[in-house]
């Protein structure tokens, strides 16, 4: 009996050890990743292409491809609820490329898929979804230039000097998205580091607090998804669906009420300042207007102008001209035209109510004046607008003289229609419009364009927010913004003089009255 008891006791003790050990391991797992992808046999193989990796990913993450394929990252198309227009990269015009349709292999290096090189791309093929571009943690993953979204892999015919990506290593080390992964495309929009947005460049991979208080690598160190809250691979906070004014206060995380979680107010609420007077400013001003005093503040310049009409020059030897400035930036490229850049740029300011009108290649234009490629709507009196900071990109680009529409062109690659090969605009435009399925009269000219980009990243420390005099002084940043009276800046000379005279007379009256009282008092004392 005693022995049996001891035996039971021993078994129980073993069970207790095992259970406790298992509990401890579970506890350990709670602090670590729950899945070490390097241990998965399916990923321990040599991958010859991106789709081969995706096929393996989908064995476990069965719904992931469907979710991605429902996102703008995949469709590059967005139905605008305000105008009914189909927007997205497939449809809108920019100053930075003359349309993606005939430049797919190059532009689509930033598509979240593999192989979109022309209109035959299969948008329903799940294996074409690129999981690695967003979930790489090694920093070694990249899509090849002109490879339609495919990464360079050993065994492919790669241009000299191109380093192949070890897809197995990347796949075995997948993890959450990061500023590095999002930045792979979003920091390089427009064809280079910081080129397009002005408030997004590689300085944000590991910035200090001065560059961005939220992404500060030594402080909050926010990933993009901290604000751009993502559910089922749908990333919130697109520039196609901006929230100009968010009066609803802080948004409880997890509460799904259709609000945009990427607004400042979603975390900071509507009364974040100690002084109520500053909170009241938010009725008319976007938070970004004061808290992002300049953009391109991380030491990387953003492109401010692009003159496509200047392209095509050759040097004295007949070679295409390429010129750099003192900082090593390309300021002239025969294949693309002339550029200018800026760092620490003071934004432009407009009223914005959340609605953006985008020009498409089907819309008629007036070439007599600069053509707005997009227009942020809003006014002082619509009750929905606030004054926002913007980068305004100014360009000169081709338009159809007969149809009075903007034109797309084939500017990349090295084929006979590519502008970069023979510098023949007519051929490049004809090809670009054909690929876009739009008419081209055969007659083209160049027109000035403007495109606005809202500034919302690179939030400065509060000590570096705009001071009062930046707006309430003679040289106000808001000079020229219609429909608003800025005390200290706006004023009438005669009214100011009248005010000073009245103040002076009041002071004089007070002094005279006081003197009279004093005199009367002394006289009374003597009596």
């Amino acid at each position, binding site marked *: 009996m005693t022995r049996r008891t001891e035996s039971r006791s021993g078994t*129980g*003790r073993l069970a*207790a*050890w*095992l*259970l*406790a*050990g*298992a*509990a*401890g*391991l*579970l*506890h*350990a*797992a709670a*602090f*670590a*990743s729950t899945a*070490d*992808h*390097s*241990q998965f046999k399916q990923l321990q193989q040599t991958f010859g292409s991106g789709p081969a990796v995706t096929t393996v990913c989908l064995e476990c993450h069965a719904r992931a491809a469907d979710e991605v394929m429902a996102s703008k990252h995949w469709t590059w198309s967005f139905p605008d609820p305000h105008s009914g227009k189909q927007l997205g990269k497939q449809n809108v015009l920019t100053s930075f490329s003359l349309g993606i349709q005939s430049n797919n292999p190059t532009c689509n290096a930033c598509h979240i898929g593999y192989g979109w090189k022309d209109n035959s791309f299969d948008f329903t093929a799940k294996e074409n979804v690129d999981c690695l571009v967003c979930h790489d943690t*090694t*920093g*070694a993953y*990249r899509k090849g230039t002109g490879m339609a979204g495919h990464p360079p892999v050993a065994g492919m015919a790669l241009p000299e000097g191109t*380093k192949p990506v070890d897809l197995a290593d990347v796949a*075995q*080390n997948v993890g959450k998205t*990061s500023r*590095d992964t999002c930045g792979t495309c979003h920091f390089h929009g427009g064809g280079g580091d910081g080129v397009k947005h002005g408030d997004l460049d*590689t*300085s944000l*991979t*590991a910035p*200090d607090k001065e560059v961005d208080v939220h992404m500060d*690598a*030594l402080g909050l160190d926010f990933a993009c998804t901290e604000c751009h809250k993502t559910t089922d691979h749908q990333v919130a906070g697109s520039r196609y669906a901006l929230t100009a004014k968010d009066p609803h206060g802080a948004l409880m995380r997890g509460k799904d009420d259709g609000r945009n979680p990427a607004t400042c107010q979603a975390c900071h609420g509507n009364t974040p300042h100690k002084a109520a007077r500053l909170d009241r400013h938010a009725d008319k001003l976007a938070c970004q207007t004061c808290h992002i005093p300049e953009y391109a503040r*991380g*030491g*990387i310049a953003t492109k401010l102008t692009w003159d496509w009409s200047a392209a095509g020059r050759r040097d004295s030897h007949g070679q295409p001209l390429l010129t750099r400035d003192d900082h090593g930036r390309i300021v002239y490229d025969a294949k693309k035209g002339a550029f200018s850049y800026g760092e620490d740029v003071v934004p432009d300011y407009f009223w914005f109510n959340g609605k953006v009108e985008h020009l498409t290649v089907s819309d008629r234009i007036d070439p007599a004046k600069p053509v707005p490629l997009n227009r942020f709507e809003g006014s002082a009196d619509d009750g929905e607008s606030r004054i926002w900071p913007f980068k305004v990109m100014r360009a000169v680009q081709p338009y159809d003289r007969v149809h009075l529409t903007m034109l797309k062109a084939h500017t990349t690659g090295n084929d006979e229609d590519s502008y970069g090969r023979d510098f023949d605009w007519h051929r490049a435009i004809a090809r670009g419009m054909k690929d876009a399925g739009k008419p081209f009269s055969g007659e083209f000219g160049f027109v000035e364009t403007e495109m606005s980009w809202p500034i919302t990243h690179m939030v400065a420390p509060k000590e570096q927010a705009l001071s009062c005099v930046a707006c309430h002084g003679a040289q106000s940043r808001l000079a020229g913004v219609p429909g608003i009276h800025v005390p200290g800046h706006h004023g009438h000379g005669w009214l100011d003089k009248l005010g000073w005279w009245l103040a002076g007379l009041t002071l004089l009256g007070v002094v005279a009255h006081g003197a009279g009282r004093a005199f009367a008092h002394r006289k009374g004392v003597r009596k």
Partner: protein
Amino acid sequence: MKSRTPLMTGALLGLLAVPFAVPVHAADADWKRGRVYYRFVCTDCHKQQPGGEISPTSRTMAEWKAYFAAGKHEKGKNSLRHFVSKSYRESIKGKNQAAAKFIDVPEEELWKDVQAFAIRGAKDGDAPAKCN
């Protein structure tokens, strides 16, 4: 009370298993932490020196590996490793936030982290990197 002993011991063993439960690659160098240290400690000091900043892309992977293997700073005046040592971090933590943030990171780990970033960021590395 006796019956709690194996439970406690098992739980402790489980806790000790934490380092082994993390993915194999998590035990590898953390190049992102190395990047922060490189930029906010190494670069922060170097940009005030006559030679200025030294970008990872200024050297090849082989050159960086040889440089770290030699471990000499200022042509041998100092040990390179001294600049990731805890004593060095202690000496500058009052004026350098990165040194303060990583004050408790074991020297060996930080040494590997910085190497990982520099070698990855080399001109022929997997992800060429500049100082900013």
